[in-house]
Every structure is written in structure tokens, then in C-alpha cells.
């Protein structure tokens, strides 16, 4: 009886709601679920949520790149959790007795064995592993693309400097996550990356040996290092990622999106589709599309086949050794930097210190400080800016951007100088020499060309605007 009673009440309420919304000029759509009323009785959310429903979101395809990064990160967390249930950060050696015949009877670490078990024995384990690795690549690619989009359109200007800073911090953490993950399988490749990290830590003047021993637990290989990388990879770095993403989104929510100029859009308004239903569905579609592409890659595109690389053995290595692409540019500086080690008052500044610590440190510092550098030396613009720019609107910034991009591209290529040499059948020394030259000459040339091209475009815009009748919008904003 009570049940029927309650059902009737609910029906009445829905009916009432429908009448109310129609009376107030709204659509007589589906009724709000009872759970919403239950929640509102306890939390009083209706007023705030109503505003949220109709919050406008400026739309442009390039605004989805950041969302792709976010969704790839969600996939990384989900697949990573699954992997963590099977992975064992243990360097003790066992005899492999699993189903992968080429390694049967080999002496492998428990960590490596757990990777083989994940790949060959856990159902859907290989899919999870491969989706995880692909998602890491997609995450980093989306973060980098998002960063360049933000840079070239001036989306980092006041009031969005904090978004820029948290974004660069996310990029750095992402590289850290990628590197620690790369080292976990304890295969031949991962051990090599770790060895290089040890060499870089060791190179820091005065504190290097101490740092290397404290962070990595001593000379490599040692029994502690995998456990430490594991905790970094599954707890400390993800914690930082969650904190930074939360901050990034909260700040975004407060300062709201930028928008491209044109139509009714100005610096003092927000024009776009409402959060509900359109933006929610577009974001949902972006999420589904991201997962779909990652699933396809994970299922069909083999990545990091650790069983081919074989278990880690300290005195073995294979050529060519290649880092993941987002570490490639760091590796590139490392390969191009000349054989200079500095001796000062009996203290050695080893060769790896400058390309391994100083150069990346400078690049990231410049990146983080860019919004302030630009205001201080280029634009002197301290106003709030909510309209995006074209590259030609700020030719100096764009020229510095393309120069930087050239610099990174050359460094990235240098990270594969041995592969390039083999591919084009040229001497490695010639590849290195060419890339060194390009690294010095390329950025200024590209920057100068960009500047010339953009100022010419801008001049043409001005002439067209002058030729057009007054009040006519400029062609690009039409």
C-alpha cells in the first residue's frame, strides 16, 4: 500500500513539475528525476546547478585538445590501477616457467616475470598494458598540442597565467610519470634508461653522488630502486597529477574559457553552447572517441613488447636504444652536447650536467615564466584578455614560438641520431654535426622567417581593412 502511495506521489510531483515548467515558458521535457529532489532536500543545490546547466562554453575544435588530455589521463588511471594489481616491483631472480616458450627456463626478475604474466596469462592484461602505454603517448601529445595552442593564441594572458603554470607543471609531471613507467618492467630497455638517469644525477656538482644514492638507493642495479620507482609511478606522481589537474580545472572554471574574436564575441562576454545538454554531450563524445581510439591502438598496435627485449642484465644493452618520444628531445640535447667537462679548482663539472640538468632546467623555467616575460619585454599589456589572437597579432611571440619549436624538433631528431644515420646510410658523426648546426642556425632563421611572414600578413590585413567600407568587419573575423 505504502509503495503504491509513494508511486502516486512521485507521479503527481512529475505532473506538477511538467505543468510548472510549461507555465514558465520552458519545454515540457522529461521530468527531473526524484533523486534530484532527494539531493536538493539535503544539499540545496537547485539554484547553483541551474546556473551551471546554462553556463555557456565557447566552442572550437582546438578547445577539445585539453579535454583529450584529461580523458587520456582518466584511461591511464583506470588501466594503471588494473596493472598495479599484477605488477611486482621485485628484482629477486626466479626461473621463468610461464607459457612464453622463448624465455622458458631463463633467469628473470620477479618484476619482469609479472610483466610477462600480465602479457600472456592475465585475460585482457596485454590489452590493458598496451592501452596504458598508448594512452601515455596520447596524453603527452595532447598536453603538448594544448600547450602550443595556448601559446600561439595568447590564451595564457591575464587572467590565465595560473592555468599556464599548472599546465607546464603537468607536462613536467607527465614526463616524470612516463620515465618512471618506462623503467618498471625491468626489461633490457628500461634498465638502460635508469642507468642514464643515474649518470645525470651523479653529475650534479657537490651533491650528485649523494643525490644518486639517496634517490636511487645506491649504485645500479640494487634491490630498492624498482620499489621506489613504483611508488613514484603509482602514488606520488599520480597524486601530483590529480592535485594539478584539479587546480587547473578549478581555475578554468573560475576564469572561464577564452574565445576567438568575431560575431558577438568580445573581451567582456562569453558566447557559446550551454553546458547542458550540448557541451556535456560533446565532452561525452570526446571522451568516448578518445577511449575508442586508445582501445583500437591497444588492441592492434603492439607497443613495448618487453618479451622481445628480454630481461634486464646490467652488462647487456641493445642498439638502437630509444626513449619514449616525449623524452626524446631531452635525450637529443644529451647526444648533441659536445664532450666538455669543466674542471674548476679540483672540482669536476661532468659533461652530463649541462645537457642533462641545466638545459632542461632553463627550458622549463623559461616556459613557466613566459606569461610574465611577454608582458615585461614584448607587449607591456597588463589588461584582462579573453579574446584569442592569431599568430599575426603578436609576431614577436609567434616568431619566438616557432624558433622554440624548431629547437625542440632538432633536439628530438637528435634523440634518434643513430636511427637517422642507419636510415639514410650516413656516418653518425655527420648526422650529429648537421644537427648541431641546425640547432644553432635553425631557430633564428625560422623565427626570422615567421616574423617576416606574419608582419606581411598583418600589413595586408590593414590595407584590406582600409580599402573596405567603414564598419565592415575584417575578413578573418567575418
Amino acid at each position, binding site marked *: 500500500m505504502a509503495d503504491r502511495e509513494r508511486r502516486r506521489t512521485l507521479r503527481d510531483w512529475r505532473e506538477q513539475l511538467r505543468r510548472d515548467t510549461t507555465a514558465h515558458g520552458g519545454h515540457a521535457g522529461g521530468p527531473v528525476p526524484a533523486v534530484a529532489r532527494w539531493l536538493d532536500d539535503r544539499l540545496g543545490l537547485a539554484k547553483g546547478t541551474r546556473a551551471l546547466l546554462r553556463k555557456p562554453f565557447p566552442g572550437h575544435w582546438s578547445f577539445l585538445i585539453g579535454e583529450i588530455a584529461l580523458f587520456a589521463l582518466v584511461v591511464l588511471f583506470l588501466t594503471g590501477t588494473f596493472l598495479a594489481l599484477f605488477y611486482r616491483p621485485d628484482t629477486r631472480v626466479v626461473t621463468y616457467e610461464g607459457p612464453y616458450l622463448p624465455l622458458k627456463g631463463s633467469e628473470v626478475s620477479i618484476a619482469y616475470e609479472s610483466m610477462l604474466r600480465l602479457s600472456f596469462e592475465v585475460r585482457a592484461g596485454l590489452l590493458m598494458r598496451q592501452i596504458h602505454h598508448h594512452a601515455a603517448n596520447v596524453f603527452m601529445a595532447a598536453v603538448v598540442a594544448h600547450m602550443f595552442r595556448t601559446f600561439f593564441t595568447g590564451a595564457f594572458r591575464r587572467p590565465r597565467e595560473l592555468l599556464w603554470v599548472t599546465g607546464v607543471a603537468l607536462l613536467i609531471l607527465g614526463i616524470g610519470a612516463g620515465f618512471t613507467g618506462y623503467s618498471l618492467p625491468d626489461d633490457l630497455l628500461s634498465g638502460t634508461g635508469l*642507468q642514464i638517469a643515474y649518470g645525470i644525477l651523479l653529475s650534479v656538482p657537490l651533491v650528485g653522488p649523494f643525490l644518486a644514492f639517496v634517490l636511487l638507493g*645506491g649504485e645500479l642495479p640494487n634491490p630498492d630502486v624498482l620499489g621506489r620507482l613504483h611508488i613514484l609511478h603509482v602514488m606520488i606522481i599520480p597524486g601530483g597529477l590529480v592535485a594539478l589537474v584539479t587546480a587547473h580545472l578549478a581555475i578554468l572554471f573560475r576564469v572561464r574559457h577564452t574565445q576567438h574574436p568575431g560575431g558577438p564575441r568580445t573581451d567582456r*562576454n562569453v558566447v557559446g553552447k550551454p553546458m547542458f545538454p550540448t557541451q556535456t*554531450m560533446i565532452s561525452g*563524445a570526446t571522451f568516448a572517441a578518445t577511449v575508442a581510439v586508445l582501445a583500437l591502438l591497444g588492441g592492434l598496435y603492439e607497443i613495448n613488447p618487453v618479451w622481445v627485449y628480454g630481461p634486464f642484465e646490467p652488462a647487456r644493452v641493445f642498439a638502437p636504444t630509444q626513449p619514449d618520444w616525449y623524452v626524446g628531445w631531452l635525450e637529443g640535447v644529451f647526444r648533441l652536447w659536445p664532450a666538455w667537462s669543466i674542471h674548476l679548482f*679540483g672540482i669536476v663539472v661532468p659533461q652530463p650536467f649541462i645537457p642533462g640538468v641545466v638545459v632542461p632546467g632553463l627550458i622549463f623555467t623559461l616556459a613557466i615564466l613566459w606569461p610574465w616575460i611577454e608582458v615585461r619585454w614584448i607587449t607591456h599589456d597588463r589588461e584582462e584578455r579573453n579574446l584569442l589572437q592569431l599568430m599575426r597579432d603578436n609576431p614577436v611571440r609567434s616568431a619566438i614560438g616557432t624558433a622554440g619549436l624548431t629547437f625542440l624538433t632538432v633536439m628530438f631528431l637528435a634523440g634518434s641520431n643513430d636511427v637517422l644515420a642507419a636510415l639514410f646510410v650516413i656516418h*653518425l658523426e655527420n648526422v650529429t654535426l648537421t644537427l648541431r648546426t641546425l640547432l644553432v642556425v635553425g631557430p633564428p632563421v625560422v623565427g626570422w622567417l615567421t616574423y617576416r611572414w606574419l608582419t606581411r600578413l598583418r600589413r595586408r590585413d590593414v590595407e584590406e581593412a582600409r580599402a573596405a567600407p567603414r564598419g565592415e568587419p575584417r575578413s578573418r573575423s567575418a
Partner: protein
Amino acid sequence: MAGDPRAERTIRRATRVAGGAFLLAVVGSIGLFVVYVAGGNTQLEGLFLFLAFGGGAVALTVWAKILIDEPDLIEERPPMHSSDADRAAFEHAYLEAREAHDPATRSRRRLLTRLLVLAGLSLTAALGLPFFSLGAPPGAALFRTKWSSGSRLVGFGGNPIRPEHVNPGAVLTVFPEGHVGDGESSALLIGISPQRLRPGVAFMDTVQGLLCFSKICTHAGCPVGLYREEVAELLCPCHQSKFKVTEAARPISGPTTRPLPQLPLGVNPGGFLIALGDFEEPVGPEFWNIRRGRRG
């Protein structure tokens, strides 16, 4: 617009596409379920997961972009900063909260605040101490390896080596006996005819036709894995440092600045190769006090 037959047709078609895509997503999920229960197959799992999510993506896109097609909303965007009145009110509230019920004078409060900062900093420093539990300072460890005078050279299999078994042109990874697989001690035993050695260079060619170098690259510590016999060059595959064996492993190209340290060789009464001591210099990447530290 409701009566427009073209719009009507578009809506019908879009509904069909979105509906079909949602059904495809269902098919994908069922397929995934079947494959999983049947024992799993990475490729099919990926394909069906792709269908499941791809169908949803297509359906949502069609629904949001074609069926709903809302007009843009326009909202004013006030400047980010709070109004002057709000800022003043905040400042007032803060000052009042700080001072209204605190009888201390301004200077005493400043003293207390400074002591609070001092206490906070010292506590932070104390909390940092467990950091030092993470590893012992390296001490002499960086200056020595497991080699000592009399250690026999053994291969990966643990087998000792007789000098007459290493032909000119041969290269062999060796370890001190009892420490097979120890990275820092790994060394390369190279057979090379004495005529090829460049005169005037200091070699530890204490056994005719044999040289032994650390296998750990002096740049970043990768194993120096490649040897080109015809030019007697060792190459590190990580950053392409090249070492000339006939010039005591002097670096001839690439980023490194230091030759590979040599291991002094000897032959024991049993006729097996032994080391006459540790490497002449610390192995591996450089560090700041590599020139001033001592071996323990």
C-alpha cells in the same frame, strides 16, 4: 520550421544514425563479453572496445550537433577582481579578526609571528630528516669495483678464461669470479695483436695480445655494447661515444670526455687470466670529486 519537410528528413535520418550508433555500441559490448568469456584475444578485445566507445562517440556527436543544435548563449563577463568595496570589507574583517581579541601590542605580535615562522621552518627541517634514511652517502663505493688482485676473469657463464683461448679480434664480456652480472665490474676483454697498439700510449698490456677495459661508458653509464674489430672502436649505443681501443680506449667522438678505465691483467699459476688489481681509475660516469677522492 517544424513543417519543413527537409528539416524533418534530416532529423529522421540523424535519429536513425544516432540510434544505429548506440546499437553498435551495444553490439561492441556484447562482443567484448563473448570474446572475454571465450578465453580472450587482444586484437578482438581492442576492436570490440573500439566499437563500444566509438558507437557512443558517433551517436553523441550526431545528437548534440545535428539534432539538438542549440543557439549560442551570451553571458556578460565581469572583470575577475572583486569590487573595491568587497576588498575593503575583507581587509577590515581580517584586521578585526586578528586584533580585536588579542591584547598583545603590535611589536609583541610581530615577535610572536616571527617565532611562529622560525618554529615552522625548524619543524620542516626536522621533518626532512627521514630523507637521509633513503641511502647511505656513497663514500668510497664510487671509487672501487669488485675486482681485486688475483680475481679470475670469468664470462657470463662463470667460466674462467685462458689467454690462449682469446684470439685477436675477439671481444668478451668478463666479470670478477663470483660476481657474474655485477654491472659496475663488467669489463671487456679484447684480443688484439700488439702491432696494432699505438706506440707511446700507456697500456696495461701485461698479457701479450690482450687488453681489458671497463664496460661501463664514462659518459652516462650505459654498457659499451658494440665493437668494430676492423677499426678497433668500441661504441656506446646510448649516446654514441666512440673509444679507440688501440689508443687505450681514448674517446674519439661522442659526448664523453674520459677513456674507459683499464684493468691490469695477469696469468695465475693455473694458466687462467686474473686481474692484478682494480681498474686504474673509477669506472662509469664522472662526478664532482672523481679527481680528489681516494679508494677505500
